[in-house]
């Protein structure tokens, strides 16, 4: 069998259900692949792992991947199972925030580590400074939990529809107490959770063939997961080595994830790509990327895989 190593961008959770399903249901095996899934975590930069040769293919958010490309690490998007973005800001309603303008003078928790770009673009488009003060927002580098909101250290925090938002609700908060700003709705959504490989490798037909089979099997996994949300969550739970994940959370997450993957057959929609690039280029004084990238994605593999 051909060996493939996949680097996730977070710890094992339903966000990556498609790959675990493909592994568990033998879809990879059917394609003659021997796949290893490496979970991520708060200190793992998947592009770095890719560059180091620790993985053949990684999952990444496109802003982070495009920025890596500019830094001299030529990564290429070969498939995009996530059609829509799940990223949003969640705020306490009682802070009086109703619209983006109300952010001024407030404290907002943001994920960094390559995930700050969409937020910074958004603020710059809205003309709100991000260096504190009455007129601007005070940005916190938020840890990977929702405590800053619950403890009211921040007025808004970053959440994913499928994970952190649910955690806020789990903490007993009712949706009525919250206001949410989905990046999709604000027109600053960027593509999340695409599959990327190193450009050089694509010159090798054997590698391309391997990736074709990999994408095909993965997408089969994703579609299976969308249809069998509960079972998929169970498979994810089986693969969680920490033993700390709960079934309820993973089932709910799978449900939300399914909404994000539903619109995609795996092929990148050039329009989505263009919107992402535009958002990133609009990043004000300090744009994420300085020029429109060339060759940052290819349809070669999805074309082959989906036929």
């Amino acid at each position, binding site marked *: 069998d051909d060996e493939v190593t996949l680097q996730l961008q977070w*710890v094992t959770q339903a966000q990556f259900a498609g790959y675990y399903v493909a592994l568990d249901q033998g879809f990879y095996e059917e394609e003659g692949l021997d796949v290893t899934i490496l979970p991520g975590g708060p200190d793992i930069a998947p592009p770095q792992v890719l560059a180091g040769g620790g993985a053949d293919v990684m999952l990444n958010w496109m802003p982070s991947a495009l920025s890596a490309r500019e830094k001299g690490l030529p990564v290429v998007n070969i498939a995009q199972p996530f059609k829509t973005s799940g990223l949003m800001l969640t705020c306490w309603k009682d*802070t009086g925030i109703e619209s983006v303008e109300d952010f001024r003078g407030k404290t907002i928790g943001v994920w960094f580590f390559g995930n700050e770009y969409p937020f910074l673009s958004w603020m710059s488009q809205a003309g709100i400074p991000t260096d504190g003060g009455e007129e601007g927002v005070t940005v916190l580098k938020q840890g990977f939990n929702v405590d800053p909101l619950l403890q009211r250290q921040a007025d808004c925090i970053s959440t994913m529809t499928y994970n952190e938002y649910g955690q806020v609700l789990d903490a007993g908060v009712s949706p009525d107490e919250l206001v949410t700003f989905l990046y999709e709705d604000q027109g600053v959504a960027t593509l999340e959770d695409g599959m990327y490989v190193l450009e050089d490798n694509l010159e090798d037909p054997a590698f391309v063939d391997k990736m074709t089979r990999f994408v095909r099997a993965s997408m089969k996994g994703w579609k299976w997961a969308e249809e069998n949300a509960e079972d998929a969550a169970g498979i994810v739970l089986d693969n969680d080595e920490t033993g700390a994940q709960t079934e309820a959370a993973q089932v709910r997450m799978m449900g939300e994830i399914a909404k994000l993957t539903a619109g995609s057959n795996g092929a990148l929609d050039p329009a989505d790509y263009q919107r992402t690039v535009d958002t990133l280029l609009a990043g004000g004084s300090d744009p994420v990327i300085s020029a429109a990238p060339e060759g940052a994605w290819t349809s070669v593999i999805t074309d082959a895989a989906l036929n």
Partner: protein
Amino acid sequence: MKSVLPVLTIVAAILFVWVLAVIPMNMHLTADQAQRDGLAVSPETPAERQDHSGLGLSLRNPSLLGLTFVQERPRLPSPHQVAVEMWDTIVMKKITSKRSLVYHGWVTLSATLLGFAIGTGLGILLAVGIVYNRAMDMSVMPWAIASQTIPILALAPMIIVMLGAIGIQGLLPKAIISAYLSFFPVVVGMVKGLRSPDGMQLDLLRTYHASPAQGFWKLRLPASVPYLFASLKIGISASLVGAIVAELPTGARAGFGARMLVGDQYGQPLVTWAALFAAAITAAALVGLFSLLERLTLRRMGMVRA
């Protein structure tokens, strides 16, 4: 044995303070929750409550005091919550289950022990080099100190990626990070220990014209044993911390560090606290083991007065 009562007293004092602290620490969350559940809370809106301290709020809402101890996501869990969680995950689960803290303890411990062995070996080698080689003596120490001021969490991912690049995965990268933290106390202690023989003890060997190797085995090494044990005790806790730190950039798969992270990530403070305490208990047990070995060895060597 003489220490049992004093330790219990201090523990009791800490528990007492802890229990008291639970009330103001958790009051805001408790009040929010109580209000959602339809209880009367004063003041009435969360925003207003933000202006009160936890203590002030507790005084205004004495009826809620009990609830602060049973929050599902407490800011500060009460001692019994932690105890119950530990009982559930240590005693009530099969030790092969990934929900058992014993299982995770072993994952961390195996990296700890390997790292400790590497770190101690390296530390002793460096110490011997420093003591016997003047060039090493002058050049290594400042850099060893500098190495310890580098934040390990920054270095860890790079180490892991670099090792991953040459195909090393699994236990070894974690052990190497753990060794990185534990070699330093061993170097410092062993250099001190190997240099502890006084002029007369050294001169004695010179009058016998003992070889450097004989000087090492018959004088420097035995003289350094008390220092070695002191270092080992610091080194083993450093190794454990290193192994836990190393679990984050290795994909937080299993082990105490993974439990702490995931507990924190998914709003399960009890998971974090239980892992934290389990880690400290493990460290205490390891240190206790070395204390025991130390006492046995030193007694055998005649270096403590029986």
